[in-house]
């Protein structure tokens, strides 16, 4: 049984613990032993993308130290997994770069890990709902996550109705949504309109940043979309309130 370390990501830890538990369930169902290293906080992306290279490198070392002892590292986020896979080796030099590269080689986004690494064909969940899927940028372009979540959703009986410009950024962009809120708002407005235009009941994605952005916009505009992380559907955890929804 592979020993998998869950990198839960800061946003999931703080805002959407369900996604962490759904990821654990999917990994355990697939035969993994899941552990959650205590020393994790954040992948360091806020510093890296803000030009604070020194801080980003310090945090990268902390993550490498905490996670390098496992067979695999899995995150329910293409963005955070992408930081470890693509960026850590760029942040560090010498022996640390070697360790960063070794960690990068065994770090995966969750749906890609299930399908591409473990060869999982389907999930046990039965969620016969109509959904649309937003392809988050880092997962899509950085890690090649496109077919994997769709394949798993199909196995859960979830029907996807593709939206226009599914591959276009939702306008979250980490600190971008804070620095340029008006532009970000216009982008997420396009995104949630495209999603709603499909007539789907659920809007799914694989990254909590995008999901919170899209949920917040869809709710303000009264789009009537249930916004969820894709693993919640795959783990059959759709009885919990959707993102940004209170208890019913």
């Amino acid at each position: 049984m592979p020993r998998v370390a869950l990198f839960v990501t800061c946003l999931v830890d703080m805002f959407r613990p369900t996604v962490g538990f759904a990821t654990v369930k999917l990994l355990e169902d697939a035969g993994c032993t899941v552990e959650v290293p205590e020393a994790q906080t954040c992948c360091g992306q806020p510093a890296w993308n803000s030009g604070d290279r020194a801080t980003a490198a310090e945090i990268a070392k902390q993550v490498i130290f905490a996670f390098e002892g496992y067979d695999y590292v899995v995150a329910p986020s293409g963005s955070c997994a992408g930081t470890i896979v693509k960026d850590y080796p760029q942040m560090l030099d010498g022996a640390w770069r070697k360790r960063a590269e070794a960690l990068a080689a065994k770090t995966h986004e969750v749906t890609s890990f299930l399908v591409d690494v473990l060869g999982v064909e389907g999930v046990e969940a039965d969620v016969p709902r109509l959904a649309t899927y937003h392809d988050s940028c880092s997962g899509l372009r950085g890690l090649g996550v496109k077919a994997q979540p769709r394949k798993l959703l199909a196995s859960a009986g979830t029907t996807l109705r593709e939206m226009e410009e599914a591959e276009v950024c939702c306008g979250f962009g980490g600190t971008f949504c804070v620095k340029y809120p008006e532009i970000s708002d216009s982008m997420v407005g396009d995104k949630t309109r495209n999603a709603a235009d499909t007539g789907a009941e659920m809007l799914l994605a694989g990254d909590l940043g995008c999901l919170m952005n899209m949920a917040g916009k869809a709710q303000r505009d009264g789009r009537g979309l249930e916004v969820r992380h894709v693993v919640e559907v795959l783990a059959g955890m759709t009885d919990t309130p959707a993102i940004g929804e209170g208890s019913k």
Partner: protein
Amino acid sequence: MTLHEPTTPQFKQNAHEALRDENLQSALRGARNGFVGKRAAARAKLGEDEFDGLRDAARDLKNHVLANLADYLEAYEGKVTAAGGHVHWAETAEDAQNIVLDICRKAGAKTVNKGKTMISEECGINDHLAANGIKPVETDLGEYIIQLRGETPSHIIAPAVHVTVPQVREEFQKAHTHLPESRDLSGLDTLLSEARGVLREKYFQAEVGITGANMLIAETGQSVIVTNEGNGDLSQSLPRVHIVMASIEKIVPTLEDSSTILRVLGRSATGQDMSVYTTYSSGPRRAEDPDGPEEYHVVLLDNGRTNMLGTEFEEMLRCIRCGACMNHCPVYQTVGGHAYGWVYPGPMGAVLTPSLIGVEEGGHLPNASTFCGRCEDVCPMRIPLPKMMRHWREREFEKKLTPGAARYGLGLWAFFAKRPGLYRAGTRLGMAALRLLGRGRGRVSSLPLAGGWTATRDMPVPSGDTFMAQWKAKR
């Protein structure tokens, strides 16, 4: 100096206004799918493997050029001179202004025709000529439209992409007063043929023609321009004097190499296999030629580019100005090119502008990106645009130009992120407070310190105690 003052430092305000400009928003909506779909179709038609292989070849070719730039430029100069042309080296935009004005004066020019050239925009040639009593006439349809409107280009290949058809109609009715007021201007074809008619006359009036150059060829001393309207040919072959304005990185070694670039250029820009007109010019008319210019000048502009060599921004000099990055950039699609506040908009501008006017002036641009990566994905020269924007952010951070609130917030976050125990306690407390604010509704519609977000979006609040706390309690 009569350069357009960059409004890049006001990017946020520019963007704010752009988002409220209904005409602009309508024009941008019209353009976005056109460019994206056409490039995708052109790539598919050629075969994705062949197209991407060409991109690799083009990248390698330009890397080789940049490693041997001085040699190729010298070889090029030798060929141009041997053909009877003149090469002028302009270190700065002002130098280029003076060189161009000097040539125009010596030619006794009253009117100068221009084929589209972004380098002349970079050097503010139009304003400089006009200030010295010489009338510049833009002959590219898009450039002609914005010249009538008193604007600068908002896109490097589609300068008037921000203008709607009704606005063009209105502009023509205002400008072309010699034509009957009741004429039919309802269709795109009638607008086009009217512009053609007007411009046709101007071709014969100019003493000097200025064009840009998509490439310069070291082997042959030729300059290459591509257009879809043929205006480049007419601008350069009818007047007595032809001036080519080009920046130094436009050089390629051989004639064969130019075809590699052309094969990725058209497909990336407009989805065409090739542009309609591709013109190679090799100096002034020879004794046996029936026509062509009597004088041929090339103004080679540096304007900060050699400073980019050997730095983390060198790869930017591979850019062939196809505009694919801006066509695919969701930020450009949302605010348009003028918001960027200087000659080069979109992702390529976000890297190039700070290189040319300084990160102090251009710092907004590399920040106004979500790093979605689409620009790099479509760049025919495989320029790692997001990576270079991040390098600018590093320079900005090092120079302490990053706004105080962002630096403070980042510092606070980093303090906790590096101390897992404290972080754990802090996030639990913070999230409990946020949950309370949500009061069972699951979201808040107003949040202190996140006013930008909650002005137009709700903010989801945590759905329970932190994952780490719950996990610890369970196991």
